């Protein structure tokens, strides 16, 4: 279960992590797309939901951006924000890495859960923030995923999770590994309660997260070009003689392998989610106006 920094990316298909976007012009007026190297004015980039207007590359979002781009304005209520990771194994540099991630992201942990509405349809929403130690799943992320599902059961609401993770968080050892079982078991409970569970796989969704709750949705959506796979490039190279195909471990490749229901451009995601939630719950959506209406 490799953590962040483990994944090699194909230049043609996979978008670059947001962190790699280097500001080329002073004062943050413009940035350079790490995918196509074109210059993008920051205000165009933001307006375009951080999709490169030149190459269409979907750059990574923070959890806050994702929520803002997805839910009806004013509908978001965060839950379980008080959970914090500990360092149960006294693992090398874990403490300092955690502190740095908290500082950089302003988040208590890399997985954010809350209730919200999309086109008026209520749901439990969970979003992973890749900046926080590569979105790796430690005890807190696993706990929040499980609580999101239990919240769905308690409130009879559908659950939508946006995944972005390098896998289990090595620094918590077996405690991390067990989050795979915990979240899968929670998904099984949600399924028994016959509540819709939609996964939206974003760049990157890997290893222990892909091999647990990310692969157990009723519906799997993915953003274009997102890196989605089991093992990192190094491990695959060790295990395989032949060269991977050009589009290996992209959303498009996974679609062809039967793992994804639909690849949806970022701008269309709110509408697609609203349609699916309406179809699965029988509730009618309402036009809520604005960006996502």
């Amino acid at each position, binding site marked *: *279960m490799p953590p962040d*920094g*483990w994944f090699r990316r194909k230049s043609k298909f996979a978008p670059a992590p947001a962190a790699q976007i280097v500001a080329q012009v002073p004062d943050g007026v413009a940035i350079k797309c790490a995918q196509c190297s074109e210059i993008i004015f920051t205000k165009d980039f933001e307006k375009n939901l951080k999709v490169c207007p030149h190459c269409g590359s979907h750059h990574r979002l923070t959890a806050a951006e994702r929520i803002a781009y997805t839910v009806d304005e004013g509908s978001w209520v965060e839950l379980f*924000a*008080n*959970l*914090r*990771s*500990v360092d149960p*194994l006294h*693992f*090398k540099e874990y403490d300092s890495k955690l502190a740095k991630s908290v500082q950089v992201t302003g988040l*208590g942990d890399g997985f954010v859960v809350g209730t919200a509405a999309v086109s008026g349809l209520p749901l439990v929403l969970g979003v992973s923030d890749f900046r926080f130690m590569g979105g790796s799943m*430690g*005890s807190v992320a*696993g*706990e929040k995923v*499980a609580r999101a599902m239990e919240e769905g059961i308690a409130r009879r609401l559908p659950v939508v999770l946006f995944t972005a993770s390098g896998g*289990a968080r*090595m620094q*918590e*050892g*077996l*405690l*991390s*590994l*067990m989050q*795979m*079982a*915990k979240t*899968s*078991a*929670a998904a*099984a*409970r949600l*399924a*028994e309660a016959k509540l819709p569970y939609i996964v939206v796989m974003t760049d990157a969704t890997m*290893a*222990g997260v*892909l*091999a*647990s*709750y*990310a*692969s*157990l949705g009723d519906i799997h959506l993915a953003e274009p070009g997102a890196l989605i*796979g*089991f*093992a990192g490039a*190094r*491990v*695959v190279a*060790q*295990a*395989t003689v032949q060269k991977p195909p050009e589009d*290996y*471990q992209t959303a498009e490749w996974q679609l062809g*392998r*039967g*793992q994804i229901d639909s690849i949806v451009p970022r701008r269309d995601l709110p509408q697609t989610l609203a349609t699916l939630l309406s179809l699965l719950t029988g509730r009618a959506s309402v036009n809520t106006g604005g960006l996502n209406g």
Partner: protein
Amino acid sequence: MASLNVLDFEKSIAELDENLSKLHQIVEDRNNPQNKPDLAGQIAELEEHRTALLSALFANLTPWDKVLLARHVKRPYTLDYVGAIFEDWTELHGDRMFADDGAIVAGLAKLDGQPVAVIGHQKGRDLKQRQQRNFGSARPEGFRKAGRIMQMAAKFGIPVVTLIDTAAAAADIAADERGISEAIARSMFEMATLPVPIVSIIIGEGGSGGALGIAVADRVLMLEHAVYSVIPPEGCAAILWRDPERKSDAAAALNLTAQRALELCIIDDIVPEPLGGAHRDWAESAESVKAALLQSLRPLTGIPAPTLVAQRYEKFRRMGRFTELEGV
């Protein structure tokens, strides 16, 4: 014990074993019945010494020593236990969709007269077997076969026993193509609500998702020198220090021993191995595993399925360590 397959820290034992075997040879030499030297005293002394040495060595194994023991090529594998522990073993093949994965064996058998479904990773001992078994690294078909047999067990009210012994799930492109992630996830998902008792025992390597994929059980046991880890020590060292050779440090950092797993409440019990490790006495190891399986299954039998499933959920639900801040 052949001089091949001897771990570094076992070398002093191997020397003693050699001397002992020479003495036994002399005593048992049938060509020399008249002139048999009385070596009983010497043998007894050497054996005592051997036991003391083994005890001392095995009381101070490092986590990395345990990794080596767990991977020991002479260590009994799943089918070795199956042959020794169960009756009427009937292996069942195939996922009914694509292939039969040799890295996971599955079937029905009786344990002390009672039907059980048995599922386990199977490593190979020689090159040909290893290739056929994919070194015990299960492909999607293996998890799907396991799932099929577990659903069958559920249908007929038969408890499930799984034996875990894998470095990791298959991580090649072909496994990815056929949905290795989905297969592991689905297996855990289904085990979480399986309405029959499940007991898992890690007999050698418990390698991350490939192991946990068939270890979502009511009772999870580990052999004394087995290991259970979120990532192989080599991979961890490569990430932490960009140096796979620091695997020994990584093994320590990962807390992958049975003793630590028990302290972290990841497993329910440790199953003792013969002195010097399971590979020194397969029969005793099998006896030990059999006793542990029976002891674990007995209290689960008769628990109503909803209670059983609810308890299993709570067991895994509780795993993890974090804090909840106040006033946030």
